[in-house]
């Protein structure tokens, strides 16, 4: 691999990391606040892709704008799902079987709804700029990937600001770090949970639309990204958007460079094994640093 090839791969890995972070962050906040492993996240991602697809096909709305529109639409959708289903789950400090089953079931419902509406065909969003690329020196980057990356990063920065500066953001972090303490200062965990579920769903729809601009999708779209979201969450921890971003970069780099590893002139990882990379990374991380990458950088003292 020569240098320009390396550079190209690195850039595409970083661009991929942007949308990975956007897709994982929604799952992270929901898990953090409610301790629910949101398996329906895959369904929300899939719906996000179809949302942008339909807007483009029917109304010629640019998919980038479609992705931004997905934020408020999926926010309301998520709040509705919370009101209808999630709020009835018993409260717990650890993920419960009931919550897993509920979200898994809801994912199946979403999937089958999509089969009914869009059938089992591969779709893609093809705009005039889908195939164009930007050349900078030796580096060639597909224009779509650049746009997707920029949109993802902007939204993550906005989220980070909300997380750190707003009362809603503080209430989310308070519930993540110490729910009891949040309760005694008056945080309404029902309301914060509902808003958080809306927020997580909004980011899933948004990320799904962005992913739909890059990949083809079917009603089963989202499955492969669900696992990646798990890996990113485990890597990045639950405390910050930057942790999620870090996890996303690590996963994207490993996924991009993994298949390039050569041993005695042979590629040791066939392409078909690429999905196994995220699995393997998950196992390795759980073994070596179960508290996530962030634990390596911060010196934390336990509260007594």
């Amino acid at each position: 691999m020569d240098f320009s090839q390396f550079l190209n791969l690195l850039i595409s890995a970083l661009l991929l990391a942007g949308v990975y972070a956007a897709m994982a962050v929604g799952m992270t906040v929901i898990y953090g606040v409610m301790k629910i492993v949101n398996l329906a996240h895959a369904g929300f991602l899939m719906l996000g892709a179809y949302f942008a697809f339909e807007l483009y096909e029917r109304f010629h709305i640019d998919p980038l704008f479609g992705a931004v529109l997905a934020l408020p639409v999926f926010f309301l959708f998520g709040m509705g799902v919370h009101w209808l289903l999630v709020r009835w789950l018993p409260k717990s400090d650890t993920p419960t079987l009931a919550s897993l089953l509920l979200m898994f079931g809801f994912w199946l419902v979403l999937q089958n709804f999509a089969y009914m509406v869009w059938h089992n065909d591969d779709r893609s969003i093809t705009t005039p700029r889908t195939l164009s690329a930007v050349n900078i020196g030796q580096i060639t980057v597909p224009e779509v990937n650049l746009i997707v990356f920029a949109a993802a990063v902007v939204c993550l920065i906005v989220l980070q600001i909300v997380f750190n500066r707003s009362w809603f953001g503080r209430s989310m972090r308070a519930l993540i770090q110490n729910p009891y303490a949040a309760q005694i200062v008056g945080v309404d965990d029902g309301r914060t949970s509902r808003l958080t579920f809306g927020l997580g769903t909004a980011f899933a729809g948004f990320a799904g639309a962005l992913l739909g601009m890059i990949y083809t999708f079917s009603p089963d779209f989202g499955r492969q990204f669900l696992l990646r979201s798990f890996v990113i969450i485990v890597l990045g921890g639950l405390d910050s958007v930057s942790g999620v971003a870090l996890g996303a970069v690590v996963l994207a780099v490993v996924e991009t460079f993994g298949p390039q590893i050569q041993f005695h002139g042979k590629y040791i990882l066939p392409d078909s094994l690429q999905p196994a990379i995220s699995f393997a990374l998950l196992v390795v991380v759980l073994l070596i640093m179960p508290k996530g990458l962030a634990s390596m950088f911060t010196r934390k003292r336990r509260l007594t």
Partner: protein
Amino acid sequence: MSQAPAEKLLEAQNLDVSYGVTQVLWGISFSVARGKVTCIIGSNGAGKTTTLNTIAGVLPTKTGRVILNGEDVTALPARERVNRHISLVPEGRQLWPNMSVEENLMMGCFLPNFRHKAHGSLTRIYDLFPRLKERRRQMAGTLSGGEQQMCAIGRGLMSEPQLLMLDEPSLGLAPKLVDEIFEFIANIAHQGVTILLVGQNVNYTLQVSHYGYVMEVGRITLEGPSDMLFNNEHVRRAYLGTGEEVSAG
């Protein structure tokens, strides 16, 4: 020291509280006089923390009533009680380890009614605890035990409570800090904040309070003005080690 009804800021009547099937409080009744320091003493597991959590609205009551300022608040959730100016400084500090000291304090003014005074309160708390001002950008999880306790008390004072409940404020602190904390409690009491204090450090707790209740296995067994409790034979034997050397916490 009789407590006329008008002077009662808080009244607990016949509280029965259970964790699942295990009943931990059996018909607890007590009252807290406005502007005074009232204490509950007792050994580990007597139900003191449960009592405070019940008053704060974190635990539901099976029977009995909690009256605040003449209003029945038994059915109200924790946040509505905070809104009525009750504040709890819980056992073990219960800070948010990965939030800065300043954010931890700010959360004391979380309710919409209190937000407008967050900045004023912050200045006041920093005047009380200059150490917290020095460390305001630091994560609360990196503070020492004493600083964490100051931060927890600061958070409790942010909303300018009528009733401040302190649960074991001296637990796990070095003797010098224990002195400081109790001196501080005496100070805020002097400023007119009503305090309900719970502690295993019976010696200090009785010295700083006006009226006290003794709790044993979920029941109140004795009550009276603190100086009388301090000289009570049973209290001296059970909690003060026959009046000789008294250990902290």
